[in-house]
Protein backbone atom coordinates (compact mmCIF):
# COMPACT_ATOMS: atom_id res chain seq x y z
CA UNK A 1 0.00 0.00 0.00
CA UNK A 2 1.46 3.28 -1.13
CA UNK A 3 1.65 6.07 1.38
CA UNK A 4 -0.50 9.13 0.67
CA UNK A 5 0.09 12.58 2.07
CA UNK A 6 -1.60 14.82 -0.51
CA UNK A 7 -4.92 13.30 -1.52
CA UNK A 8 -5.40 11.00 1.47
CA UNK A 9 -8.46 12.97 2.60
CA UNK A 10 -10.03 13.54 -0.79
CA UNK A 11 -12.98 11.22 -0.13
CA UNK A 12 -14.16 13.01 2.99
CA UNK A 13 -17.49 14.60 2.19
CA UNK A 14 -17.31 18.38 2.10
CA UNK A 15 -13.49 18.53 2.17
CA UNK A 16 -13.74 21.02 -0.71
CA UNK A 17 -15.09 23.56 1.74
CA UNK A 18 -13.39 25.38 4.55
CA UNK A 19 -15.20 24.01 7.61
CA UNK A 20 -14.66 20.36 6.79
CA UNK A 21 -11.12 21.00 5.61
CA UNK A 22 -10.24 22.82 8.81
CA UNK A 23 -11.89 20.11 10.96
CA UNK A 24 -9.58 17.57 9.33
CA UNK A 25 -6.40 19.36 10.27
CA UNK A 26 -6.41 21.97 7.53
CA UNK A 27 -4.30 25.13 7.91
CA UNK A 28 -2.23 23.55 10.71
CA UNK A 29 0.88 24.02 8.56
CA UNK A 30 0.23 27.77 8.42
CA UNK A 31 0.02 27.93 12.22
CA UNK A 32 3.24 25.93 12.48
CA UNK A 33 5.11 27.89 9.80
CA UNK A 34 4.18 31.27 11.29
CA UNK A 35 5.99 30.23 14.50
CA UNK A 36 9.13 29.67 12.41
CA UNK A 37 11.22 32.24 10.55
CA UNK A 38 10.75 32.36 6.75
CA UNK A 39 14.35 31.13 6.38
CA UNK A 40 13.58 28.10 8.57
CA UNK A 41 10.59 27.24 6.38
CA UNK A 42 12.87 27.32 3.32
CA UNK A 43 15.29 25.09 5.24
CA UNK A 44 12.55 22.49 5.90
CA UNK A 45 11.70 22.43 2.20
CA UNK A 46 15.37 21.91 1.37
CA UNK A 47 15.58 19.03 3.83
CA UNK A 48 12.50 17.41 2.32
CA UNK A 49 14.30 16.89 -0.99
CA UNK A 50 11.09 17.95 -2.78
CA UNK A 51 11.59 18.25 -6.51
CA UNK A 52 9.44 20.41 -8.79
CA UNK A 53 6.36 18.42 -9.77
CA UNK A 54 5.66 20.30 -12.99
CA UNK A 55 8.02 18.22 -15.09
CA UNK A 56 11.59 19.42 -14.73
CA UNK A 57 12.15 17.92 -11.27
CA UNK A 58 14.38 20.75 -10.05
CA UNK A 59 14.85 20.81 -6.24
CA UNK A 60 12.28 23.25 -4.86
CA UNK A 61 14.26 24.32 -1.78
CA UNK A 62 17.19 25.25 -4.00
CA UNK A 63 14.93 27.23 -6.35
CA UNK A 64 13.60 29.11 -3.34
CA UNK A 65 17.04 29.88 -2.00
CA UNK A 66 17.98 31.54 -5.34
CA UNK A 67 15.31 34.20 -4.84
CA UNK A 68 16.95 37.62 -4.77
CA UNK A 69 15.92 39.85 -1.89
CA UNK A 70 16.86 43.44 -2.74
CA UNK A 71 15.56 46.05 -0.25
CA UNK A 72 12.31 47.77 -1.07
CA UNK A 73 11.49 45.57 -4.10
CA UNK A 74 8.41 43.35 -3.92
CA UNK A 75 8.84 39.61 -4.41
CA UNK A 76 6.25 37.38 -6.01
CA UNK A 77 5.17 33.79 -5.80
CA UNK A 78 3.32 32.54 -8.85
CA UNK A 79 1.57 29.19 -8.88
CA UNK A 80 1.76 27.52 -12.26
CA UNK A 81 -1.64 25.94 -12.85
CA UNK A 82 -1.37 26.07 -16.62
CA UNK A 83 -1.30 22.26 -16.77
CA UNK A 84 -1.30 21.59 -20.51
CA UNK A 85 1.10 18.72 -21.13
CA UNK A 86 -0.90 16.03 -22.93
CA UNK A 87 -1.57 13.18 -20.52
CA UNK A 88 -1.46 15.42 -17.46
CA UNK A 89 -4.52 16.25 -15.39
CA UNK A 90 -3.32 15.92 -11.81
CA UNK A 91 -3.29 19.63 -10.89
CA UNK A 92 -6.86 19.93 -12.08
CA UNK A 93 -7.76 17.09 -9.69
CA UNK A 94 -6.02 18.77 -6.76
CA UNK A 95 -7.63 22.15 -7.42
CA UNK A 96 -11.05 20.72 -8.09
CA UNK A 97 -11.28 18.44 -5.08
CA UNK A 98 -8.81 19.90 -2.55
CA UNK A 99 -8.70 23.63 -3.31
CA UNK A 100 -7.86 24.52 0.29
CA UNK A 101 -4.78 22.30 0.22
CA UNK A 102 -3.36 24.50 -2.54
CA UNK A 103 -4.39 27.73 -0.78
CA UNK A 104 -2.79 26.49 2.45
CA UNK A 105 0.42 25.60 0.63
CA UNK A 106 0.40 29.00 -1.06
CA UNK A 107 0.08 30.87 2.24
CA UNK A 108 3.00 28.98 3.80
CA UNK A 109 5.11 29.41 0.67
CA UNK A 110 4.23 33.10 0.34
CA UNK A 111 5.33 33.57 3.94
CA UNK A 112 8.60 31.73 3.33
CA UNK A 113 9.36 33.79 0.22
CA UNK A 114 7.94 37.11 1.39
CA UNK A 115 5.31 37.37 -1.32
CA UNK A 116 2.50 39.75 -0.43
CA UNK A 117 0.72 39.24 -3.75
CA UNK A 118 0.57 35.69 -4.95
CA UNK A 119 -0.96 34.67 -8.26
CA UNK A 120 -2.41 31.40 -9.44
CA UNK A 121 -2.08 31.34 -13.22
CA UNK A 122 -4.59 28.75 -14.39
CA UNK A 123 -5.17 27.55 -17.93
CA UNK A 124 -8.18 29.30 -19.43
CA UNK A 125 -10.06 26.11 -20.23
CA UNK A 126 -10.33 25.22 -16.52
CA UNK A 127 -12.96 27.95 -16.24
CA UNK A 128 -15.12 26.28 -13.60
CA UNK A 129 -12.08 25.64 -11.39
CA UNK A 130 -11.49 29.39 -11.22
CA UNK A 131 -14.79 29.64 -9.34
CA UNK A 132 -13.79 26.82 -6.98
CA UNK A 133 -10.46 28.50 -6.20
CA UNK A 134 -11.98 31.95 -5.77
CA UNK A 135 -14.52 30.55 -3.34
CA UNK A 136 -11.76 28.82 -1.36
CA UNK A 137 -9.73 32.04 -1.28
CA UNK A 138 -12.79 33.99 -0.04
CA UNK A 139 -13.36 31.36 2.68
CA UNK A 140 -9.72 31.49 3.75
CA UNK A 141 -9.85 35.25 3.83
CA UNK A 142 -13.00 35.42 5.94
CA UNK A 143 -11.30 33.07 8.38
CA UNK A 144 -8.29 35.38 8.59
CA UNK A 145 -5.77 33.19 6.78
CA UNK A 146 -5.32 35.90 4.15
CA UNK A 147 -5.37 39.67 4.20
CA UNK A 148 -3.55 42.06 6.48
CA UNK A 149 -1.52 41.03 9.52
CA UNK A 150 -2.42 37.34 9.28
CA UNK A 151 -2.70 35.71 12.76
CA UNK A 152 -1.08 38.80 14.22
CA UNK A 153 2.27 38.06 12.59
CA UNK A 154 2.43 41.31 10.66
CA UNK A 155 2.52 39.31 7.42
CA UNK A 156 0.13 40.53 4.70
CA UNK A 157 -0.83 38.34 1.80
CA UNK A 158 -3.45 38.21 -0.95
CA UNK A 159 -3.96 35.44 -3.49
CA UNK A 160 -5.40 36.18 -6.93
CA UNK A 161 -6.45 33.83 -9.71
CA UNK A 162 -5.47 34.78 -13.25
CA UNK A 163 -6.98 32.83 -16.14
CA UNK A 164 -4.97 32.10 -19.28
CA UNK A 165 -6.59 31.86 -22.68
CA UNK A 166 -5.32 28.72 -24.36
CA UNK A 167 -1.58 28.41 -24.88
CA UNK A 168 0.52 25.40 -23.83
CA UNK A 169 3.61 27.58 -23.93
CA UNK A 170 2.36 29.57 -20.92
CA UNK A 171 3.28 26.60 -18.75
CA UNK A 172 6.90 27.60 -19.39
CA UNK A 173 7.66 29.91 -16.50
CA UNK A 174 8.90 32.96 -18.39
CA UNK A 175 6.08 32.72 -20.97
CA UNK A 176 3.69 32.47 -18.04
CA UNK A 177 5.10 35.69 -16.59
CA UNK A 178 4.76 37.46 -19.95
CA UNK A 179 1.16 36.32 -20.12
CA UNK A 180 0.51 37.44 -16.56
CA UNK A 181 1.83 40.86 -17.60
CA UNK A 182 -0.81 40.93 -20.32
CA UNK A 183 1.33 40.01 -23.30
CA UNK A 184 1.74 37.21 -25.82
CA UNK A 185 3.23 34.12 -24.20
CA UNK A 186 6.68 34.38 -25.71
CA UNK A 187 9.34 32.82 -23.46
CA UNK A 188 12.17 35.08 -22.29
CA UNK A 189 15.84 34.42 -22.72
CA UNK A 190 17.43 33.21 -19.47
CA UNK A 191 19.40 34.56 -17.68
CA UNK A 192 18.18 36.65 -16.02
CA UNK A 193 16.18 33.97 -14.25
CA UNK A 194 12.82 34.82 -12.67
CA UNK A 195 14.42 34.50 -9.23
CA UNK A 196 16.24 37.74 -10.07
CA UNK A 197 14.00 39.36 -12.66
CA UNK A 198 10.58 37.84 -12.96
CA UNK A 199 7.07 39.28 -12.75
CA UNK A 200 7.21 43.04 -13.54
CA UNK A 201 11.00 42.72 -13.31
CA UNK A 202 10.80 41.74 -9.62
CA UNK A 203 12.27 38.59 -8.06
CA UNK A 204 9.76 35.78 -8.58
CA UNK A 205 9.37 32.11 -7.82
CA UNK A 206 7.15 30.05 -10.14
CA UNK A 207 6.10 26.63 -8.81
CA UNK A 208 3.69 23.98 -9.95
CA UNK A 209 0.38 23.35 -8.12
CA UNK A 210 1.42 19.93 -6.82
CA UNK A 211 4.77 21.28 -5.61
CA UNK A 212 3.04 24.00 -3.59
CA UNK A 213 0.46 21.59 -2.20
CA UNK A 214 3.31 19.32 -1.04
CA UNK A 215 4.61 22.15 1.16
CA UNK A 216 1.70 21.41 3.53
CA UNK A 217 2.72 17.83 4.51
CA UNK A 218 6.38 18.89 4.50
CA UNK A 219 5.78 21.55 7.14
CA UNK A 220 3.34 19.37 9.08
CA UNK A 221 5.64 16.34 9.34
CA UNK A 222 8.97 18.12 8.98
CA UNK A 223 11.33 17.99 6.01
CA UNK A 224 13.34 15.07 7.33
CA UNK A 225 10.29 12.88 7.83
CA UNK A 226 9.03 13.72 4.35
CA UNK A 227 12.40 12.79 2.88
CA UNK A 228 12.05 9.30 4.35
CA UNK A 229 9.18 8.58 1.92
CA UNK A 230 10.45 7.29 -1.41
CA UNK A 231 13.80 6.04 -2.66
CA UNK A 232 17.05 7.98 -2.89
CA UNK A 233 16.60 11.40 -4.44
CA UNK A 234 12.99 10.65 -5.34
CA UNK A 235 11.56 11.74 -2.02
CA UNK A 236 7.94 12.09 -1.07
CA UNK A 237 4.89 11.21 -3.07
CA UNK A 238 4.00 11.98 -6.66
CA UNK A 239 0.66 12.39 -8.32
CA UNK A 240 0.31 10.46 -11.54
CA UNK A 241 -2.45 10.97 -14.04
CA UNK A 242 -2.95 7.75 -15.90
CA UNK A 243 -4.77 7.60 -19.22
CA UNK A 244 -4.90 5.81 -22.56
CA UNK A 245 -5.88 2.16 -22.84
CA UNK A 246 -6.10 1.11 -19.20
CA UNK A 247 -8.93 -0.18 -17.06
CA UNK A 248 -8.85 2.56 -14.47
CA UNK A 249 -7.72 5.93 -15.82
CA UNK A 250 -7.44 8.59 -13.14
CA UNK A 251 -5.19 10.37 -10.69
CA UNK A 252 -3.10 8.29 -8.29
CA UNK A 253 -0.75 9.29 -5.52
CA UNK A 254 2.22 6.99 -5.19
CA UNK A 255 5.12 7.03 -2.83
CA UNK A 256 8.09 6.46 -5.05
CA UNK A 257 8.73 2.86 -4.04
CA UNK A 258 6.57 0.91 -6.49
CA UNK A 259 7.48 -0.63 -9.83
CA UNK A 260 6.06 0.41 -13.20
CA UNK A 261 4.59 -3.06 -13.55
CA UNK A 262 2.76 -2.71 -10.25
CA UNK A 263 1.44 0.68 -11.32
CA UNK A 264 0.07 -0.59 -14.63
CA UNK A 265 -1.28 -3.94 -13.49
CA UNK A 266 -2.05 -3.38 -9.80
CA UNK A 267 -5.73 -3.17 -8.90
CA UNK A 268 -4.96 -0.25 -6.65
CA UNK A 269 -3.75 1.72 -9.71
CA UNK A 270 -4.39 1.37 -13.45
CA UNK A 271 -5.84 -2.13 -13.12
CA UNK A 272 -4.23 -3.51 -16.27
CA UNK A 273 -4.77 -2.93 -19.97
CA UNK A 274 -8.36 -2.32 -21.05
CA UNK A 275 -10.41 -4.97 -22.86
CA UNK A 276 -7.95 -7.74 -21.99
CA UNK A 277 -5.45 -6.45 -24.54
CA UNK A 278 -1.69 -6.42 -24.31
CA UNK A 279 0.58 -3.53 -23.46
CA UNK A 280 2.46 -2.14 -26.46
CA UNK A 281 4.05 1.08 -25.30
CA UNK A 282 3.84 3.87 -22.77
CA UNK A 283 4.79 7.50 -22.35
CA UNK A 284 5.39 7.64 -18.61
CA UNK A 285 5.71 11.38 -17.94
CA UNK A 286 3.61 13.51 -20.27
CA UNK A 287 3.71 13.71 -24.06
CA UNK A 288 7.18 15.25 -24.37
CA UNK A 289 9.10 12.46 -22.68
CA UNK A 290 10.32 9.49 -24.73
CA UNK A 291 7.86 6.71 -25.50
CA UNK A 292 9.07 3.25 -24.43
CA UNK A 293 8.07 -0.14 -25.81
CA UNK A 294 6.67 -2.53 -23.18
CA UNK A 295 9.88 -4.50 -22.72
CA UNK A 296 11.97 -1.41 -21.95
CA UNK A 297 9.22 0.10 -19.85
CA UNK A 298 8.95 -2.72 -17.35
CA UNK A 299 12.64 -3.57 -17.21
CA UNK A 300 15.67 -1.40 -17.79
CA UNK A 301 18.16 -2.32 -20.50
CA UNK A 302 20.23 -3.92 -17.74
CA UNK A 303 17.29 -6.18 -16.95
CA UNK A 304 16.44 -4.55 -13.62
CA UNK A 305 12.88 -3.87 -12.57
CA UNK A 306 11.95 -0.35 -13.58
CA UNK A 307 10.60 1.63 -10.66
CA UNK A 308 8.31 4.67 -10.60
CA UNK A 309 11.10 7.01 -9.48
CA UNK A 310 12.84 9.92 -11.18
CA UNK A 311 16.08 7.94 -11.43
CA UNK A 312 14.75 4.57 -12.52
CA UNK A 313 12.45 5.99 -15.22
CA UNK A 314 15.46 7.87 -16.59
CA UNK A 315 17.76 4.84 -16.38
CA UNK A 316 19.50 4.28 -19.70
CA UNK A 317 19.16 7.91 -20.76
CA UNK A 318 17.15 8.56 -23.87
CA UNK A 319 18.64 5.49 -25.57
CA UNK A 320 16.66 3.04 -23.45
CA UNK A 321 14.98 5.14 -20.76
CA UNK A 322 12.50 7.99 -20.37
CA UNK A 323 11.53 10.50 -17.66
CA UNK A 324 9.13 11.02 -14.77
CA UNK A 325 8.23 14.42 -16.28
CA UNK A 326 4.85 15.74 -15.20
CA UNK A 327 3.50 12.31 -14.28
CA UNK A 328 1.20 12.11 -17.30
CA UNK A 329 1.17 8.36 -17.84
CA UNK A 330 -0.12 7.46 -21.32
CA UNK A 331 -0.60 3.77 -22.09
CA UNK A 332 -0.96 2.33 -25.61
CA UNK A 333 -2.43 -1.12 -26.16
CA UNK A 334 -1.51 -3.63 -28.87
CA UNK A 335 -3.97 -2.15 -31.40
CA UNK A 336 -2.60 1.39 -31.32
CA UNK A 337 -0.59 2.89 -34.15
CA UNK A 338 2.60 4.58 -33.00
CA UNK A 339 2.83 6.63 -36.21
CA UNK A 340 -0.65 8.07 -35.77
CA UNK A 341 -0.09 8.75 -32.10
CA UNK A 342 3.19 10.51 -32.84
CA UNK A 343 1.42 12.53 -35.54
CA UNK A 344 -1.11 13.86 -33.01
CA UNK A 345 1.73 14.91 -30.74
CA UNK A 346 3.62 16.58 -33.59
CA UNK A 347 0.47 18.46 -34.52
CA UNK A 348 0.07 19.51 -30.90
CA UNK A 349 3.58 21.00 -30.75
CA UNK A 350 3.20 22.72 -34.13
CA UNK A 351 -0.02 24.27 -32.85
CA UNK A 352 1.56 25.35 -29.57
CA UNK A 353 4.89 26.70 -30.84
CA UNK A 354 4.96 30.42 -30.07
CA UNK A 355 6.87 31.09 -33.28
CA UNK A 356 9.80 33.01 -31.83
CA UNK A 357 12.58 30.56 -32.79
CA UNK A 358 12.76 29.33 -36.37
CA UNK A 359 13.92 25.76 -35.59
CA UNK A 360 10.76 25.20 -33.57
CA UNK A 361 8.35 27.31 -35.64
CA UNK A 362 9.38 25.71 -38.95
CA UNK A 363 10.57 22.34 -37.70
CA UNK A 364 7.37 21.43 -35.87
CA UNK A 365 5.38 22.11 -39.05
CA UNK A 366 7.73 20.03 -41.19
CA UNK A 367 7.57 17.13 -38.75
CA UNK A 368 3.79 17.19 -38.77
CA UNK A 369 3.63 17.20 -42.57
CA UNK A 370 6.09 14.34 -42.96
CA UNK A 371 4.31 12.27 -40.33
CA UNK A 372 1.04 12.97 -42.08
CA UNK A 373 2.49 11.65 -45.33
CA UNK A 374 3.74 8.50 -43.66
CA UNK A 375 0.49 7.94 -41.80
CA UNK A 376 -1.61 8.35 -44.94
CA UNK A 377 0.51 6.04 -47.09
CA UNK A 378 2.37 8.74 -49.00
CA UNK A 379 5.70 8.51 -47.21
CA UNK A 380 9.13 7.54 -48.48
CA UNK A 381 11.79 5.61 -46.58
CA UNK A 382 14.06 8.66 -46.68
CA UNK A 383 11.33 10.60 -44.82
CA UNK A 384 12.17 8.65 -41.68
CA UNK A 385 15.76 9.86 -41.79
CA UNK A 386 14.58 13.35 -42.64
CA UNK A 387 12.34 13.35 -39.57
CA UNK A 388 15.24 12.24 -37.45
CA UNK A 389 17.40 15.00 -38.90
CA UNK A 390 14.78 17.71 -38.28
CA UNK A 391 14.13 16.75 -34.66
CA UNK A 392 17.87 16.73 -34.01
CA UNK A 393 18.16 20.27 -35.36
CA UNK A 394 15.32 21.55 -33.17
CA UNK A 395 16.56 20.03 -29.92
CA UNK A 396 18.69 22.44 -27.94
CA UNK A 397 18.40 25.23 -30.51
CA UNK A 398 15.49 27.18 -29.08
CA UNK A 399 14.96 29.75 -26.33
CA UNK A 400 12.66 27.53 -24.29
CA UNK A 401 12.27 23.78 -23.84
CA UNK A 402 9.23 23.53 -26.16
CA UNK A 403 11.65 22.74 -28.97
CA UNK A 404 13.06 19.79 -27.02
CA UNK A 405 9.56 18.74 -26.01
CA UNK A 406 8.55 18.62 -29.67
CA UNK A 407 11.69 16.78 -30.76
CA UNK A 408 11.83 14.05 -28.11
CA UNK A 409 8.56 12.22 -28.85
CA UNK A 410 9.44 12.02 -32.56
CA UNK A 411 12.98 10.87 -31.84
CA UNK A 412 11.87 8.19 -29.39
CA UNK A 413 9.15 6.90 -31.72
CA UNK A 414 11.71 6.43 -34.50
CA UNK A 415 14.32 5.04 -32.12
CA UNK A 416 12.10 2.30 -30.76
CA UNK A 417 9.49 1.79 -33.49
CA UNK A 418 11.41 2.35 -36.69
CA UNK A 419 10.10 -0.88 -38.23
CA UNK A 420 6.55 0.35 -37.75
CA UNK A 421 7.37 3.55 -39.67
CA UNK A 422 9.02 1.47 -42.41
CA UNK A 423 6.04 -0.87 -42.57
CA UNK A 424 3.78 2.15 -43.13
CA UNK A 425 5.95 3.37 -45.98
CA UNK A 426 6.36 -0.04 -47.61
CA UNK A 427 2.70 -1.03 -47.23
CA UNK A 428 0.82 2.16 -48.09
CA UNK A 429 -2.47 0.38 -48.82
CA UNK A 430 -2.43 -2.16 -46.04
CA UNK A 431 -1.48 0.48 -43.47
CA UNK A 432 -4.70 2.35 -44.30
CA UNK A 433 -6.72 -0.75 -43.46
CA UNK A 434 -5.04 -2.08 -40.35
CA UNK A 435 -2.50 -1.20 -37.72
CA UNK A 436 0.93 -2.70 -37.38
CA UNK A 437 0.08 -4.43 -34.13
CA UNK A 438 2.29 -5.64 -31.38
CA UNK A 439 5.24 -7.10 -33.32
CA UNK A 440 8.12 -7.70 -31.00
CA UNK A 441 7.29 -4.92 -28.54
CA UNK A 442 5.28 -7.17 -26.29
CA UNK A 443 5.82 -7.07 -22.61
CA UNK A 444 7.96 -10.18 -21.98
CA UNK A 445 5.95 -11.03 -18.88
CA UNK A 446 2.74 -11.20 -20.88
CA UNK A 447 4.28 -13.15 -23.71
CA UNK A 448 5.23 -15.87 -21.27
CA UNK A 449 1.75 -16.15 -19.79
CA UNK A 450 0.06 -15.94 -23.18
Amino acid at each position, binding site marked *: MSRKVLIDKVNIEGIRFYDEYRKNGGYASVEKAFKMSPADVVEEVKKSGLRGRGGAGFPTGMKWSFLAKPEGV*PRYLVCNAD*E*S*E*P*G*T*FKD*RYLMEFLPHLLIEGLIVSSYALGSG*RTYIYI*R*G*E*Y*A*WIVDILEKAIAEAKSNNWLGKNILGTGFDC*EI*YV*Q*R*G*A*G*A*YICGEETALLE*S*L*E*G*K*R*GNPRIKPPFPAVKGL*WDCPTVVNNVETLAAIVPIINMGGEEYAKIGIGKSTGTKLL*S*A*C*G*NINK*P*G*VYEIDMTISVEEFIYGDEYCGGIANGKKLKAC*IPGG*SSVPILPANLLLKTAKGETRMMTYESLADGGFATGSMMGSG*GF*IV*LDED*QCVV*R*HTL*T*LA*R*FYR*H*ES*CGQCSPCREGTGWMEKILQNIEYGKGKLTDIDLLWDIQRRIEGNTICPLGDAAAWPVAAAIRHFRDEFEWHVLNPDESQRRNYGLAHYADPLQTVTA
Partner: protein
Amino acid sequence: MIKFSDDKLEKVKGIIASYPEGKQKSAVIPLLHMAQEEFGGWLSVESMDYVASLLQLQPIEVYEVATFYSMYNLKPVGKYLFEVCQTGPCMLNGSDQIIEYIKEKLNIGVGETTPDRMFTLKTVECLGACGYAPMMQLGKFFREHLTKEKVDQIIEECRKNAALNN
Protein backbone atom coordinates in the same frame (compact mmCIF):
# COMPACT_ATOMS: atom_id res chain seq x y z
CA MET B 1 -21.40 51.40 -29.35
CA ILE B 2 -20.72 48.41 -27.13
CA LYS B 3 -20.31 48.77 -23.39
CA PHE B 4 -20.12 46.48 -20.35
CA SER B 5 -22.98 46.66 -17.85
CA ASP B 6 -22.36 48.51 -14.58
CA ASP B 7 -21.95 45.15 -12.81
CA LYS B 8 -19.28 44.14 -15.26
CA LEU B 9 -17.55 47.49 -14.98
CA GLU B 10 -17.39 46.96 -11.20
CA LYS B 11 -15.80 43.57 -11.92
CA VAL B 12 -13.28 45.24 -14.23
CA LYS B 13 -12.27 47.55 -11.37
CA GLY B 14 -11.77 44.51 -9.11
CA ILE B 15 -9.59 42.81 -11.72
CA ILE B 16 -7.42 45.90 -12.18
CA ALA B 17 -7.07 46.18 -8.39
CA SER B 18 -5.54 42.70 -8.25
CA TYR B 19 -2.35 44.06 -9.85
CA PRO B 20 0.04 46.66 -8.46
CA GLU B 21 -0.61 50.24 -9.49
CA GLY B 22 0.16 50.99 -13.11
CA LYS B 23 0.15 47.32 -14.13
CA GLN B 24 -3.39 47.25 -15.51
CA LYS B 25 -2.11 45.84 -18.81
CA SER B 26 -2.25 42.49 -17.02
CA ALA B 27 -6.01 42.76 -17.12
CA VAL B 28 -6.13 42.42 -20.90
CA ILE B 29 -6.56 38.62 -20.87
CA PRO B 30 -9.39 38.54 -18.30
CA LEU B 31 -11.10 41.49 -20.00
CA LEU B 32 -10.93 39.84 -23.41
CA HIS B 33 -12.61 36.77 -21.87
CA MET B 34 -15.34 39.05 -20.51
CA ALA B 35 -15.75 40.85 -23.82
CA GLN B 36 -16.05 37.57 -25.70
CA GLU B 37 -18.70 36.34 -23.29
CA GLU B 38 -20.66 39.57 -23.33
CA PHE B 39 -20.48 40.49 -26.99
CA GLY B 40 -21.63 37.44 -28.91
CA GLY B 41 -19.02 34.75 -28.27
CA TRP B 42 -16.29 36.28 -30.40
CA LEU B 43 -13.98 39.31 -30.46
CA SER B 44 -14.73 41.94 -33.06
CA VAL B 45 -12.32 44.80 -33.63
CA GLU B 46 -14.85 46.98 -31.85
CA SER B 47 -14.75 44.73 -28.76
CA MET B 48 -10.96 44.71 -28.73
CA ASP B 49 -10.83 48.50 -29.12
CA TYR B 50 -13.24 48.82 -26.22
CA VAL B 51 -10.97 46.67 -24.01
CA ALA B 52 -8.02 48.84 -25.07
CA SER B 53 -9.89 51.98 -24.07
CA LEU B 54 -10.79 50.56 -20.65
CA LEU B 55 -7.13 49.79 -19.93
CA GLN B 56 -5.66 52.84 -21.64
CA LEU B 57 -3.71 50.64 -24.02
CA GLN B 58 -2.97 51.06 -27.71
CA PRO B 59 -5.37 48.86 -29.72
CA ILE B 60 -2.39 46.94 -31.15
CA GLU B 61 -1.44 45.80 -27.64
CA VAL B 62 -4.83 44.14 -27.39
CA TYR B 63 -4.84 42.72 -30.94
CA GLU B 64 -1.47 41.06 -30.48
CA VAL B 65 -2.73 39.30 -27.37
CA ALA B 66 -6.09 38.34 -28.87
CA THR B 67 -4.40 36.75 -31.88
CA PHE B 68 -1.98 34.69 -29.77
CA TYR B 69 -4.35 32.72 -27.56
CA SER B 70 -6.49 29.94 -28.99
CA MET B 71 -9.55 30.53 -26.79
CA TYR B 72 -10.35 33.84 -28.42
CA ASN B 73 -12.58 33.55 -31.45
CA LEU B 74 -11.71 36.18 -34.02
CA LYS B 75 -14.65 35.24 -36.22
CA PRO B 76 -18.30 34.79 -35.28
CA VAL B 77 -19.18 31.34 -34.00
CA GLY B 78 -22.46 29.53 -33.49
CA LYS B 79 -24.47 29.75 -30.30
CA TYR B 80 -22.91 26.47 -29.17
CA LEU B 81 -19.22 25.90 -29.81
CA PHE B 82 -18.07 22.28 -29.72
CA GLU B 83 -14.34 22.21 -29.02
CA VAL B 84 -13.32 18.58 -29.43
CA CYS B 85 -9.89 17.42 -28.30
CA GLN B 86 -7.89 15.43 -30.85
CA THR B 87 -4.50 15.02 -29.12
CA GLY B 88 -2.82 11.66 -28.31
CA PRO B 89 -4.68 10.43 -25.24
CA CYS B 90 -8.08 11.38 -26.69
CA MET B 91 -7.11 9.83 -30.04
CA LEU B 92 -6.25 6.56 -28.24
CA ASN B 93 -9.81 6.56 -26.95
CA GLY B 94 -11.58 7.23 -30.21
CA SER B 95 -11.72 11.03 -30.65
CA ASP B 96 -11.30 10.63 -34.45
CA GLN B 97 -14.58 8.73 -34.61
CA ILE B 98 -16.32 11.29 -32.38
CA ILE B 99 -15.20 14.16 -34.62
CA GLU B 100 -16.37 12.28 -37.71
CA TYR B 101 -19.70 11.60 -36.06
CA ILE B 102 -20.28 15.25 -35.15
CA LYS B 103 -19.38 16.30 -38.71
CA GLU B 104 -21.89 13.87 -40.11
CA LYS B 105 -24.58 14.66 -37.59
CA LEU B 106 -24.36 18.46 -38.01
CA ASN B 107 -23.39 18.26 -41.66
CA ILE B 108 -20.47 20.67 -41.24
CA GLY B 109 -16.71 20.41 -41.41
CA VAL B 110 -14.18 21.36 -38.74
CA GLY B 111 -14.13 25.14 -38.35
CA GLU B 112 -17.61 25.51 -39.83
CA THR B 113 -20.92 26.71 -38.44
CA THR B 114 -24.37 25.29 -39.18
CA PRO B 115 -26.49 27.53 -41.43
CA ASP B 116 -28.87 28.26 -38.53
CA ARG B 117 -25.82 29.60 -36.61
CA MET B 118 -26.54 27.16 -33.82
CA PHE B 119 -23.39 25.00 -33.78
CA THR B 120 -19.72 25.48 -34.59
CA LEU B 121 -17.28 22.56 -34.60
CA LYS B 122 -13.68 23.24 -33.69
CA THR B 123 -10.89 20.76 -32.96
CA VAL B 124 -8.59 21.69 -30.11
CA GLU B 125 -5.37 20.38 -28.61
CA CYS B 126 -5.18 18.72 -25.18
CA LEU B 127 -7.48 20.32 -22.60
CA GLY B 128 -6.32 18.27 -19.61
CA ALA B 129 -9.07 15.67 -19.42
CA CYS B 130 -6.99 12.76 -20.76
CA GLY B 131 -8.28 10.26 -18.20
CA TYR B 132 -11.87 11.02 -19.16
CA ALA B 133 -11.37 10.86 -22.92
CA PRO B 134 -12.72 11.49 -25.46
CA MET B 135 -13.91 14.93 -24.48
CA MET B 136 -14.97 18.36 -25.62
CA GLN B 137 -15.39 21.76 -24.07
CA LEU B 138 -18.84 23.29 -24.29
CA GLY B 139 -19.02 26.76 -22.79
CA LYS B 140 -17.56 26.79 -19.32
CA PHE B 141 -17.57 23.02 -18.80
CA PHE B 142 -16.01 19.83 -20.11
CA ARG B 143 -18.12 17.03 -21.54
CA GLU B 144 -16.22 13.82 -20.98
CA HIS B 145 -16.33 10.09 -21.85
CA LEU B 146 -18.01 11.02 -25.15
CA THR B 147 -19.86 8.39 -27.13
CA LYS B 148 -22.11 8.79 -30.16
CA GLU B 149 -25.14 8.56 -27.87
CA LYS B 150 -23.71 11.28 -25.62
CA VAL B 151 -23.09 13.52 -28.61
CA ASP B 152 -26.73 13.05 -29.65
CA GLN B 153 -27.86 13.98 -26.15
CA ILE B 154 -25.67 17.09 -26.06
CA ILE B 155 -26.97 18.31 -29.42
CA GLU B 156 -30.53 17.69 -28.26
CA GLU B 157 -29.86 19.52 -24.99
CA CYS B 158 -28.45 22.55 -26.85
CA ARG B 159 -31.46 22.70 -29.17
CA LYS B 160 -33.82 22.54 -26.19
CA ASN B 161 -31.95 25.28 -24.34
CA ALA B 162 -31.95 27.48 -27.42
CA ALA B 163 -35.71 26.98 -27.82
CA LEU B 164 -36.27 27.88 -24.17
CA ASN B 165 -34.22 31.05 -24.48
CA ASN B 166 -36.11 32.23 -27.52
